[in-house]
């Protein structure tokens, strides 16, 4: 008889022991086993194994099993029944009724879809018409028709524009990753920005004649945009172009785009020195051609709707502007600037009072605008989809400057470094001093902790104790900076271990200073 492979034989023997072979298969296998001593031994062992396993003693019967199970089933059924306002067995009936009801309502809505759509559309149009015909009736005057290029540059850097000569109220545009774009109208903030002039910019950046022409043109464009962005009406109405919050960044991006890389570095220095809320994040790339800069700048900013504020409401309304007649009107009313200010103040005060005494909502739903007001400032959040696309100039990245958090521990002396923590389009700049960091670090090391093996331990402590954010990029910066300042981790670790066993608090200070090689 042909010898079976071991694996097949094993399977067949198992099936034989389990009584799963047919009569013919059994007969053939037995013939084979009789002829093969090893197979016979295997079969005997398999039978024995089966016998041993089957010997397992059964558990003693559980007499109370049903009682417990029954109680549990009752409890569960009770729970389920309590949740329903009708007997459980009626669930399919009610479910069916629900489906039928939804289908009937859906059918009715579908049948009446045209009248319903018309109704909502009509209501919406009626509200819109009421505003455009009544609220906006009367003359509109541009609030910023007399600003110069210095003020445009000031706006580009800081996003602020005084709304009257005495700067009692200010328009401020702002952006941040968390809060989005914002327009604030109201009292100026306490820390007023330093005055900026175009000549300072020119001195710092040192542009060529062509570049100077581009900058001049951009500031002029900016002036015109601002001029047509904020109006005040005779019926206590203020209209603001919702694209305004992106204009300042657009001006800065466009200026940076026309500069050479070294000039961009100087431009960034210019911004940094004045603590402008924007920064140049990259300096590389060839200057853009003036035509392209103008093109991008011009096509980016087409206001078709304005945010119209009255003392009671805020709506997004279409305002048709005739700039020539507006300028003419502004010229005629040149002596009434104080009247404009009064109008603005009346709107703001009305808004603030409304806010304080009533709850109200934006007339146009789902527009993405949000508004908050207090007695000083009306703040409008603008959805980020509107306005200038500052990503047009890919090589030149202008973004909100990281707020600087200075070290408060050791204000004088010692090497310091900045940790830049980015998050999306914004971030934070931590200014740390090596000495103060190490002092603070040592002071906060828990007694008995000895696991400082490398810079990562320091970073972990930084996260733990200083609340610094955890971020790979930041860790790399830490490593780099600590290496640059030759912080010797072996010495540091030894010092920490020695320090750990010194009980006196006073002895810690001189020791921790020795850990840093300068």
């Amino acid at each position, binding site marked *: 008889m042909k010898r079976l492979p071991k*694996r097949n034989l*094993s*399977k067949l023997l*198992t*099936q034989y*022991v*389990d009584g*799963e072979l047919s009569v013919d298969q059994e007969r053939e296998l037995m013939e084979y086993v009789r002829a093969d001593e090893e197979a016979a031994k295997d079969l005997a*062992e*398999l039978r*024995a*194994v*089966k016998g*041993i*396993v*089957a*010997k*397992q*003693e*059964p*558990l003693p*019967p*559980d007499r109370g*099993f*049903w009682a*417990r*199970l*029954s109680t*549990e*089933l009752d409890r*569960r059924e009770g729970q389920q029944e309590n949740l329903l306002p009708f007997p459980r067995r009626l669930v399919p009936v009610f479910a069916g009724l629900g489906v039928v009801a939804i289908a009937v309502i859906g059918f009715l809505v579908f049948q009446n879809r045209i009248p319903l759509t018309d109704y909502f559309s009509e209501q919406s149009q009626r509200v819109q018409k009421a505003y455009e015909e009544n609220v906006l009736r009367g003359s509109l005057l541009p609030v910023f028709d007399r600003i110069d290029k210095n003020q445009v540059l000031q706006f580009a850097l800081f996003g602020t524009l005084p709304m009257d000569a005495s700067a009692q109220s200010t328009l401020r545009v702002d952006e941040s990753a968390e809060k989005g774009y914002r327009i604030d109208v109201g009292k100026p903030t306490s820390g007023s920005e330093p005055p900026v002039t175009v000549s300072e910019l020119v001195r710092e950046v040192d542009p060529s004649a062509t570049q100077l022409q581009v900058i001049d043109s951009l500031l002029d464009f900016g002036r015109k945009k601002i001029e047509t962005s904020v109006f005040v009406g005779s019926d206590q109405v203020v209209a603001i172009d919702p694209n305004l919050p992106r204009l300042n960044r657009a001006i800065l991006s466009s200026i940076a785009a026309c500069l050479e890389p070294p000039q961009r570095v100087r431009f960034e220095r210019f911004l940094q020195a004045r603590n402008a809320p924007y920064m140049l994040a990259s300096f590389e790339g060839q200057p853009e051609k003036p035509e392209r800069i103008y093109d991008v700048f011009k096509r980016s900013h087409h206001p078709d709707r304005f945010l119209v504020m009255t003392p009671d409401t805020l709506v997004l309304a279409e305002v048709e502007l005739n700039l020539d007649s507006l300028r003419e009107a502004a010229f005629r009313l040149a002596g009434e600037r104080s009247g404009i200010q009064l109008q603005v103040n009346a709107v703001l005060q009305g808004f603030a009072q409304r806010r304080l005494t009533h709850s109200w909502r934006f007339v146009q739903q789902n527009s993405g605008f949000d508004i908050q007001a207090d007695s000083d400032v009306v703040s409008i959040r603008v959805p980020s989809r509107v306005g200038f696309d500052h990503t047009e100039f890919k090589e030149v990245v202008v973004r909100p400057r990281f707020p600087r958090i200075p070290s408060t521990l050791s204000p004088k002396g010692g090497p310091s470094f900045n940790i830049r923590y980015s998050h999306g389009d914004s971030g934070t700049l931590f200014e740390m001093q090596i000495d103060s960091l190490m002092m603070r670090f040592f002071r906060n090391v828990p007694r008995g902790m000895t696991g400082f093996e490398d810079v990562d331990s320091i970073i972990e402590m930084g996260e733990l104790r200083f609340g610094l954010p955890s971020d790979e990029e930041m860790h790399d910066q830490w490593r780099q900076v600590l290496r640059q300042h030759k912080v010797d981790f072996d010495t540091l670790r030894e010092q920490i271990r020695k320090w750990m066993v010194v009980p006196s608090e006073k002895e810690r200070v001189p020791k921790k200073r020795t850990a840093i090689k300068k």
Partner: protein
Amino acid sequence: MKTLPVYMSDPEDKVTATTDARFTARSATEPLHQKSDEVLITLFQNGDRNAFRALVERYQERVRNLVFSIFQDGDLVNDMAQDVFIKAYEGLRNFRFQSSFYTWLYRITVNRCRDELRKRKVRKLLSLQSLLESSDKELIERLSVEPRDKEMQEIISKTLQALPDKYRIPVILKDINGLSYEEIAETMQCEIGTVKSRLSRARSMLRKTLRPFIEEM
């Protein structure tokens, strides 16, 4: 189809049930514990909870022993068995008689046990106490027992416990519960060929471990 009067365990509860050939006039008069699984299921589906009780009492020990065979943990048995019967209670109303009741019940039991085994595996991994089960060598090491110090029952238990789940469950279903290959395949929701291979492999592992006792016997 025919409509018959059905007598519940309480003679006062007389209902009319629609049933098929499984339900005969004779079975209506039998005590519940003598009725077939199919009849009890039909009674239960018509609202007789005592029919479910009869099914539980018929199979509770088999389910408990199956759970015990798989886990070798007496503390776990009753909770697991209760879970199994709760699941059966919830599912029995929709039982379509496409398999036998006990195969269906075993499938619920095996699935519940698998869930528990999965959870335990995760816990083992987390507590870093697991042993690698991949190679035969390691498996044999795990299977090694001290025959002189242990009772036979404990040895069998330990030996079975050391088998990977996919080999242990078919052995238990076959050798302890006496299921056929087809029923095992149905219970474990796999092919008969898989059952054959796993049983063959499982027995081979068991032979290696139990050889000293086989020789003594």
